[in-house]
């Protein structure tokens, strides 16, 4: 689900501003911000800044843009600054420096009123521990955003019921959140966020408090929802597999900084450093790596047989490769044959992964 709308527009030669552009966002917690920022400008490390000023660098120079309809995942372990970053995007936390532009408007310049208007009309958020209002029924939780905007009860209930139907909770409208299971509570959270029809949705580790099976269901559901609604999503997680599954692009975050930004395939096949490689070790590569990246470019004759798509992941072609030792031809989106792929190439990729993994164990492996 690569940013299709943006791609099409680009191909058509139209320049489309990304709905969310972040430039050098830095967030420092502490008293002596000026000293900390000065040290940062000199390129001092996080530890040095903390020792000298007592300030904590939560996010440092995060620069990225999110395309329309894209799921942008920020993945990092706890303490890596990802939750702070996502809060900077809507100014729930005020960034210390850097700009966030939403549809070309720098939100740092907005006054309280303007910021509220932005949050009411364009943004929405799903929270890690759901952030539901325990004193309100499910329907009043979902309708909260509209209620804040001053919608009449009839209007907001109508819309809330629609959304609750979408997330499969229309029979639970009059329950209170604590009467629902964790998965259902997060569906309420999701419905609440969708109810205001936001352009951009922020997800702050929404599924990490859920059981593994429920988590998988919710991920699938989010993907199918996104397939139909095509919003712009920023998704925070500490689960690398979740990042691979959901993300059109992934940013890996460590100690407040982006280590690598790329498509799941780029990250899995070319980890920027040892830190990223450790995550990729037990990643399901065949689910991420596409035929295009392992194929041999076409030289000379075109082999016979039905071609496989250049964008297909290896999992899709493995059955055919295992069935016959022949190489398969690979075709691009227009049906033009562009290369070939056989067992050995796939085996080499998987083998390399396991060798790199073994080598990473004694810290001697070189990045490819």
């Amino acid at each position, binding site marked *: 689900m690569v940013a299709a709308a943006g791609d099409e527009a680009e191909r058509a030669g139209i320049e489309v501003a990304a709905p969310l552009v972040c430039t050098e966002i830095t967030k420092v917690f502490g008293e002596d911000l000026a000293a900390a920022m000065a040290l940062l400008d000199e390129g001092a490390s996080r530890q040095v800044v903390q020792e000298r000023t007592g300030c904590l660098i939560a996010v440092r120079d995060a620069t990225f843009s999110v395309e329309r309809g894209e799921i942008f995942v920020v993945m990092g372990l706890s303490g890596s600054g990802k939750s702070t970053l996502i809060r900077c995007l809507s100014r*729930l936390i005020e960034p210390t420096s850097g700009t966030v532009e939403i549809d070309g408007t720098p939100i740092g310049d907005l006054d309280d009123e303007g910021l509220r208007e932005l949050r009411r009309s364009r943004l929405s958020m799903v929270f890690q521990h759901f952030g539901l209002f325990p004193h309100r029924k499910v329907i009043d939780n979902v309708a909260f*955003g509209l209620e804040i905007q001053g919608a009449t009860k009839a209007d907001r209930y109508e819309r809330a019921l629609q959304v609750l139907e979408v997330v499969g909770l229309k029979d639970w409208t009059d329950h209170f959140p604590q009467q629902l299971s964790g998965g259902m509570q997060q569906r309420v959270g999701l419905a609440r966020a969708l109810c205001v029809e936001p352009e951009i949705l922020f997800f702050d580790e929404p599924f990490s408090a859920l059981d593994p099976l429920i988590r998988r269901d919710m991920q699938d559901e989010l993907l199918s929802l996104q397939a139909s609604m095509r919003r712009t999503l920023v998704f925070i997680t500490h689960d690398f597999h979740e990042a691979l599954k959901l993300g059109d692009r992934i940013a890996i975050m460590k100690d407040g900084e982006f280590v690598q930004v790329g498509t799941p395939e780029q990250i899995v096949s070319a980890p920027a450093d040892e830190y990223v490689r450790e995550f990729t070790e037990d990643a399901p590569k065949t689910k991420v790596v596409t035929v295009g990246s392992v194929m041999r470019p076409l030289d000379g004759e075109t082999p016979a047989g039905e071609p496989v798509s250049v964008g297909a992941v290896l999992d899709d072609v493995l059955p055919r490769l295992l069935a016959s030792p022949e190489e398969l031809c690979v075709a691009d989106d227009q049906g033009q044959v562009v290369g070939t792929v056989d067992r050995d190439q796939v085996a080499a990729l998987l083998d390399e992964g396991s060798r790199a993994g073994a080598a990473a164990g004694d810290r001697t492996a070189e990045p490819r």
Partner: protein
Amino acid sequence: MTTAAPSAAPSEASSTIEARLTQDRQRRIRSGGGLAIGVAVLVAVQIALSSLGGFPESLVIPLADWIDDARRWVINNQTSHWSFSFFFNPVSDMIDWGLRAVEWFLLWLPWYVVVGATAMIATSVLGLRAGLLTGVGVLYFGAIGLWTESLQTVALMAVAVAISVAIGVPVGIAAARYDRLQQALRPALDAMQTLPAFVYLIPVVLLFGVARVPAIIATVVYALPPVIRLTNLGIRTVPAATVEAAEMFGATPRQTLRKVQFPLALPSVLTGINQTIMMALSIVVIAALIGAGGLGQVVLVSLRGLFVGRALEAGLAIVVLAVIMDRVTHGAAGIGTRRRLRLMPDTLAHVKPIRWVEGVLSSIDGGLSRAGSMMAVRMSRKLGVEALGRHPRKVLGGALLLAGTLVGAVSGRVEFPGAISFSFADRIDWLVDWVRDNLYEIGGTWFGTGWFSDSITIYAVTPLRELFSSDLAWPVVVLAVALASWRLGGPALAAFCTACAAGLGFLGMWTLSMDTFAQVIVAVAMAILCGIPLGVLAARSDRFERMLKPVLDFLQTIPSFVLLVPVIIMFNVGRIPGIIASVLYALPAATRLTNLGIRQVAGEATEASRAFGATRGQTLRKVQLPLAAPSIIAGINQTVMLVLAMVVIAGLVGGGGLGLETVKGLRRTDSVGSGFVAGMAIVLLAMLLDRMLQAWTRRFTPVEGGN
């Protein structure tokens, strides 16, 4: 391995052990040495200054005279000065008007409507059994002939609590929003809660004179802290994620407050209001001293005339009022109330007749609710108010009460009927006589309440008072306070406490303060000696805890002043009933916190100790009590503060000391100054004790690593 090694190793080990033991011993000697030196210094100073004794008159600051001057100025300018004509008098008039209106309304209602309304409220909040008991309780007010007085007290409470809530909730909300305000308020609220209720009456009398309005103002000041505190706390403990979610949806601060924070804080706010009501009730009674009237007045006048029976009747009415208000507001504070048609505790639910009666009741209830719902639906349709249709019982109840009120208004028969009457004052008076005749010296032997009172007086209270007020030179006492507080909390605390102690002398209240202090020490010692063992027992036996709980609940619900009455029945007036009442009043704190502290000790620690084969006694001494120490010390702290509050009130019944001096100031205009000064001395004493005890508690809190 050489042959020397095995023999060398143990000797080396034993020498290190020797070293350790010596070190330990030296440390103990050093810390004991500090104490010994302190005592030695005190003894030396005492010998050097033994002729000094009490605080010299010449050093006393004539504060009392200044205050009398101020009082005179107030009286002379009450009609002319702007601060009175534009602030104090209008405030006073407004409160007075509100009070009269509430009182008039309550007395205008037919008595059966009042009984019915209270019973219905209690039923809807707590269930049928509580509702019926509440009805009986309200009937009791009329039956003992104190209908008007009871409603006066209720009106006084209602106005005071309404003002407290009107001030407290907004202030609490503001404190939750602005950290700086919270920081500024905290010490003030702490101080307000530390001081005995009594102390508030004096400055109010100074400004507003003696009447019901100052009583309300004093009540508001005293009862305000819990509602501010718990509103603040309730809003601050709303999960941050919830508030963040509201902000993320673009809610304005006001919307966040109205739709998220306040509703979620409501249980806490209601708990605060419950505490405010209980505190208000306790002071409204004492406020009879400055002309508040109502039930407190009856208790006070009866006690003064030694009509103990009448005092007990009125006191019991106050207790009934307290219990009703406490339970109902407590029930209202809990969310998700269930309607219960139970007459008896659940343990008796299997008894046939009870089940039968309850069955009948529930079918009556069903019928009533159906009738109500028919009515409610019709009304809601007619009036266009949808909400009415959802509360059939309330609509029905409201209709009944309205009808009752109309009948009363038409027939003019609203007064409590004399036919319903009940009095046990005579029997109590007889009991008092009987106790005096028979228990003072049981069966003509030396043993009895007289012996008990006399020995406490002769062997504890009097010697201590003499010791502090005249035997010891006053600098010795001040120095002792300084040394002790230094040891507990360092130089800052020492400076504060020394200033407080010396202040007692400069105020000219040295002797009276030492009198009160001696009573406090005796009462605290008794309360601790009873309370801590009870707490230990309660912690070890669930059954005992269950038995003890209602007793402690009851003791905590009784307003301090009322607690004096039954004690007087046993011990007559004087210092001893004050001390006994203090012990009873403070007992729940010591017992509860000991019990709580021991029960909070992690099960694992206790289990580990048992796994090593420790006896129950060893587990208690070596594991549970040390771990429970912070809680127990906090209990002792509370005990001391409660005892102080009570001992001061006991000044009313011959306890003497600072309390009596304050009461005199309240009663007689010519001694307002000295009353005020005595009140200040109480404040100093309270703060001195509280700070020292808090420092002591902190030393036991493991987080601070102190030992």
